[in-house]
């Protein structure tokens, strides 16, 4: 694992990123990534890699995918100017509206693409994990659309926090399995989905929802989410007449952010910021800010940054947002952080809630708690960049967060009286 320590190494790695050399033939993003999975799953990963390289580059497949993205997902999603947030924060705020995509978040871009890929590869059923439930809902919908049975593993704690999404998945025909092992959240759900796949690696397709996992998953997810950044870049040039000065997205596993960032990595003038869940504070277990606080290690198939104790045991995490509540991060983010192309910061639970309130009141948009982290990051950036342009990835809508918002924002006296 070659570390990236010197300025020259950072520069070379950035050139490799921009030249599209990552992942390399070993599934690496510099020192990060790889394929650390049980031998039972190696043939399935190899088949998937061959399938992804073939079909993602296939003109007919792309045409079919693009048609479904347009007709069924509702792409391109809008780029909204946010005049009231702009006035309040003192910068020109633009929102890339993935909340307007079918099922309410960016997750559908990946779920649809992989479900179509699974069909091409001859899968008989699909398994998936879900944290906030958005990926589970997206999978359930995509599987219904392409006609494959779907089983979704979900941590029992997340099922409580995101009850509306459990019902949506079931309505869409998915089987939802509660996971009571481990921390009863996303991480335990991934462990369980992997176990399911280990039991039937040939007939089952594992539809991983974030830019994590063993190669080729981080690559597939990035390729399917990169549509966000391609659209946003063209829309900014058309609507604002210029690229943004800053680009900001929230980072959990890192799928919406890698999707938004990718088209802008070569734009040296664009300051790119990933916002992680700062939770209740900097102590281990109080947040889910993997890049900011984590150390390198291997979890769920790739070498990346992890929240872990000194014995290499994975730590439980905390965030008010279930979708960011994960102790790892995609390997490409680990690389982008180590070469300094993307800066990673934290936003805590309270700042995220405040951003939900502002976005609702001022723009008439209820953002997901995940996306609210990006908004809070933009507010902070705007404070020192008056008049500059900031593009925020609004990755999803907040309807699914109503149970949490009822206990927080709506429980405050001034809100309850309205």
């Amino acid at each position, binding site marked *: 694992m070659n570390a990236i320590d010197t300025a020259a190494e950072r520069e070379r790695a950035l050139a490799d990123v921009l030249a599209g050399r990552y992942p390399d033939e*070993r599934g690496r993003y510099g020192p990060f990534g790889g394929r650390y999975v049980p031998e*039972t799953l*190696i043939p399935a990963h190899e088949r998937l890699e061959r399938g992804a390289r073939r079909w993602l580059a296939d003109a007919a497949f792309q045409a079919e995918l693009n048609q479904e993205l347009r007709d069924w997902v509702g792409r391109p999603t809008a780029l909204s100017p946010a005049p009231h947030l702009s006035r309040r924060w003192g910068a020109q705020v633009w929102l890339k509206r993935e909340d307007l995509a079918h099922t309410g978040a960016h997750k559908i871009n990946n779920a649809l693409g992989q479900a179509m890929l699974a069909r091409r590869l001859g899968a008989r059923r699909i398994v998936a994990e879900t944290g906030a439930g958005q990926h589970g809902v997206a999978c359930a919908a995509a599987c219904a659309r392409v006609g494959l049975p779907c089983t979704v593993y979900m941590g029992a704690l997340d099922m409580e926090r995101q009850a509306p999404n459990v019902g949506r998945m079931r309505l869409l025909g998915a089987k939802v399995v509660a996971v009571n092992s481990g921390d009863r959240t996303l991480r335990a759900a991934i462990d369980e989905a992997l*176990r399911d796949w280990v*039991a039937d690696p040939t007939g089952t397709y594992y539809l991983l929802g974030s830019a994590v996992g063993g190669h080729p998953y981080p690559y597939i997810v990035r390729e399917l989410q990169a549509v966000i950044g391609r659209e946003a870049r063209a829309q900014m040039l058309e609507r604002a007449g210029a690229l943004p000065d800053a680009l900001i997205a929230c980072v959990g596993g890192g799928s919406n952010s890698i999707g938004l960032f990718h088209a802008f990595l070569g734009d040296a003038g664009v300051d790119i910021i990933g916002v992680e869940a700062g939770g209740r504070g900097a102590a281990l277990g109080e947040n889910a800010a993997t890049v900011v606080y984590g150390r390198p290690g*291997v979890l769920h198939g790739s070498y990346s940054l992890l929240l872990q104790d000194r*014995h290499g045991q994975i730590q439980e995490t905390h965030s008010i947002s279930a979708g960011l509540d994960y102790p790892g991060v995609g390997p490409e983010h680990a690389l982008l952080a180590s070469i300094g192309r993307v800066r990673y910061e934290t936003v805590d639970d309270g700042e995220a809630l405040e951003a939900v309130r502002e976005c609702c009141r001022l723009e008439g948009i209820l953002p997901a708690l995940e996306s609210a982290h990006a908004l809070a990051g933009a507010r902070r950036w705007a404070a020192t960049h008056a008049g500059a342009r900031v593009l925020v990835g609004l990755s999803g809508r907040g309807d699914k967060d109503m149970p949490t918002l009822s206990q927080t924002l709506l429980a405050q006296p001034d809100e309850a009286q309205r």
Partner: protein
Amino acid sequence: MSEVAPRTARTLPRESIVAALREAAKNGQPALVAFLTAGFPSRERFREDLTAIASAADVVEIGVPFTDPMADGVTIQRASEQALRAGVSLEWILSELAALPLLDTPLLLMSYLNPLLAYGLARLAADAARCRVCGFIVPDLPFDESDDFRAALAPHGLALVQMVTPVTPPERLARVAGASQGFVYAVTMTGTTGKSVTAPKEIADYLERVRAAAAVPVCAGFGIRSAEQVEALRGLVDGVVVGSALVEVLERGESPQRWLAALRPPRR
């Protein structure tokens, strides 16, 4: 990097695994490779349980608990969680082994990769060798990613056991089985640890392919829990791995020696 004594004086640790398995299997009866999760059911009984199991088995795998044991079934998940809650760590396991009187039975550590990375691979290899560990099994470290660890283990003569499975393609199986040290861990089913299997014809053909490719003994594992299963594998493998079933024996507070002895047919 510490220099190691010339290889003439004593058997390399990885070769002692091979020797123990070949000796036990010389009459055709599969050798027994027994697994226990370190510190489960209790930290206090670990050395006692280990010694008892070592007296009845031919090789022992000591499981290092991990928070995310994705290749393990419910029994070993539960044991790992409990051991972690009791404070079991790789440091603790090595200190327990250092305090143990010398056993005749070769010991291996079975661990997911991250606790090993956190310990530091070079330091781990040296400390493990000092504690008379003979090798490692790392279920989430496939052969293709194992160069660094094999390089760290090599100066100390420690084995890195490779796994193969019924779905491993023939070319890959030959390469991985051929590179395995100590023994080849032949997974007899797809799926996580702990579910029962029988030995149909396809399994026999598969094990034959593994044996043809391997330079070291072949041990079958995943789902073995009865004397009938062990008997069905006679002549097909050099050894069998018993994991979840033995962990359940310990969990119930029964004698691991008696249970292991019952897996072997009466000697003729």
